[in-house]
């Protein structure tokens, strides 16, 4: 009881004396806030990108690529293979009673980014009549779908946000052909929002792709139908294809963005932490020095070294917690929900929103408190070893 009381008193005195070292304390808070804001900003960027990829996949949709292809761009699937894929077991049927399979091809076209005014790659996807049906997340927001056989395109809301000249009714030129925007679709939190869609046969014809496709998306009746469908494809030697659930396909891409966090975000945050730690140590040593007589007086009266240690430690933790809150608030206000785009696995821009979630805030808080702990422990030990004689 006595130890708790005296420790509580010393902590209270330390914290209440912070205004006496205002500017030094503010510098520490700001340096920790910067570490938290930069780290959190980077984590939010990676998290937003990763969440967009993860959110794009459905567990009961199968994506088929040529065996050995890592991405859609370097895959080729023949018309005959599409017919074989449609004959597999467990495929969901559409309203017309036919299997829900969408054979698609994807090309890279140029667009002008609104943020920089520079050219960047955009994906133009040719889809079949079931293109919408195999993507349950997608919804037309404006206009209508393209008419089969026409030079019409529909635009993803993310792409519209990031690129100039794709508003409803506008005409766009890709190569020798012109296209008219007739609709805008949205699929929040997915990569599909970063695409342009047009009729697959028109894209094949205008871009000289013959009758070949690059991927097929097949909607199954349920995720449980997956093993039987995979077994069917493996058993047919004409189907030398790579088959996986759409969810697994995007999860693998999301994993690559995790490496960004691991090899860039955290090292950057840790390097900045060393600077903030130096500031915290400086502040706390100054705090102990300026309170030397007070600490010694308390020790003479009978307060324990532990209470002196805890007072200094808690002051450091309070400063680091304030820094963490400031950094989190700044990052949340400036970055959370901010739209951005970067190069995805298909060498095209993927639009996404930065996401500052509780888990990331927790990680940044822990880093800030570790800075506070290390910044408080050595000055705290000095305070605990303060000789009572100094008071006299």
């Amino acid at each position, binding site marked *: 009881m006595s130890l708790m009381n005296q420790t*509580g008193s010393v902590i209270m005195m330390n914290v209440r004396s912070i205004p006496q070292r205002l500017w030094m304390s503010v510098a520490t808070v700001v340096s920790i806030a910067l570490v938290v804001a930069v780290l959190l900003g980077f984590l939010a960027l990676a998290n937003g990108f990763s969440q967009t990829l993860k959110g794009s996949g459905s567990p009961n949709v199968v994506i088929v690529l040529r065996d050995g292809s890592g991405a859609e761009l370097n895959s080729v699937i023949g018309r005959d293979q599409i017919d074989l894929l449609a004959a597999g077991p467990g495929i969901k049927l559409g309203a017309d009673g036919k299997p829900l399979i969408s054979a698609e091809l994807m090309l890279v076209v140029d667009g002008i980014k609104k943020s920089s005014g520079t050219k960047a790659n955009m994906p133009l996807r040719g889809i079949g009549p079931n293109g919408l049906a195999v993507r349950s997340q997608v919804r037309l927001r404006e206009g209508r779908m393209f008419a089969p056989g026409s030079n019409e395109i529909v635009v993803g809301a993310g792409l519209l946000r990031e690129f100039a000249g794709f508003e409803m009714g506008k005409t766009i030129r890709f190569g020798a052909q012109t296209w008219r925007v007739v609709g805008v679709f949205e699929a929040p939190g997915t990569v599909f929002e970063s695409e342009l869609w047009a009729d697959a046969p028109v894209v094949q014809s205008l871009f000289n792709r013959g009758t070949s496709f690059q991927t097929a998306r097949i909607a199954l009746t349920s995720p449980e139908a997956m093993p039987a469908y995979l077994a069917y494809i493996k058993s047919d030697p004409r189907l030398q294809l790579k088959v996986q659930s759409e969810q697994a396909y995007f999860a693998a891409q999301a994993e690559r963005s995790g490496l960004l966090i691991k090899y860039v975000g955290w090292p950057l945050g840790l390097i900045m932490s060393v600077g903030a730690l130096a500031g915290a140590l400086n502040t706390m040593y100054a705090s102990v020095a300026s309170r030397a007589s007070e600490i010694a007086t*308390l020790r*003479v*009266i*009978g307060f*324990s070294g532990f209470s002196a240690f805890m007072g200094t430690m808690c002051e450091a933790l309070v400063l680091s917690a304030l820094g963490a809150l400031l950094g989190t608030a700044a990052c949340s206000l400036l970055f959370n929900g901010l739209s951005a785009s970067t190069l995805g696995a298909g060498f095209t821009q993927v639009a996404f929103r930065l996401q500052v979630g509780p888990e990331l805030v927790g990680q940044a808080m822990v880093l800030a408190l570790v800075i506070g702990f290390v910044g408080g422990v050595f000055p705290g030990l000095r305070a605990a070893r303060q000789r009572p004689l100094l*008071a*006299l």
Partner: protein
Amino acid sequence: MSDFIKLTNVTKTYTRGKESISIFDKLTLSIPKGDFVAIMGPSGSGKTTLLNLLGGTDRCDSGEIVFDGEHIEGYSEGQLAAWRARNVGFIFQFYNLMPVLTAAQNVELPLMLTSLTSLPSQKRKDNVATALKIVDLSDRAGHKPKELSGGQQQRVAIARAIVSDPKFLLCDEPTGDLDRATANDILKTLQQLNRELGKTIIMVTHDPEAARFATRTLHLDKGQFVEVTS
């Protein structure tokens, strides 16, 4: 009168580099309960070292230091801290109040340490109020040190020293930073504590005027008592 504080053959040496400086060599001292002793002497005579040994903030090299039958010379740092909290009230030359605390909160500090922590909050507040009343500062309980004069700050320090009802008070130049009139007020308060509450007081001072308020004065020179005046 029986010995309340007894130092027997106390030796204390400080080492500075390769040089050893002997402060006390077999010093012996007896102070009965209820005494008010002033310790005077020139700089370097050992006054502050004696105060540190009596207050348990420093340890002797050899000899015995006994308070009310309790030997403290072998105590560890932690034991000495607990012993100080139970038995000693300190009054410093520069008051040593906590600037962020009010007068009442400063006075309450020792109550955080002893068995008095188990007192109900109201009882603790009563004790603080009583201590402030004794030093005639009840109306300044909510003021912070910077809002008080030097004399008032020293009164708060006295209230802090007596609030836990310690067995004796150690005063280190308690009037060294005050003008004559204020110093006399403080010394009268100490005299009152000695006469009316029976507190044993040991006061180190350079000031012969201050020493006159004590019941006797011990003169220290080169680590030995050379004269006793009553």
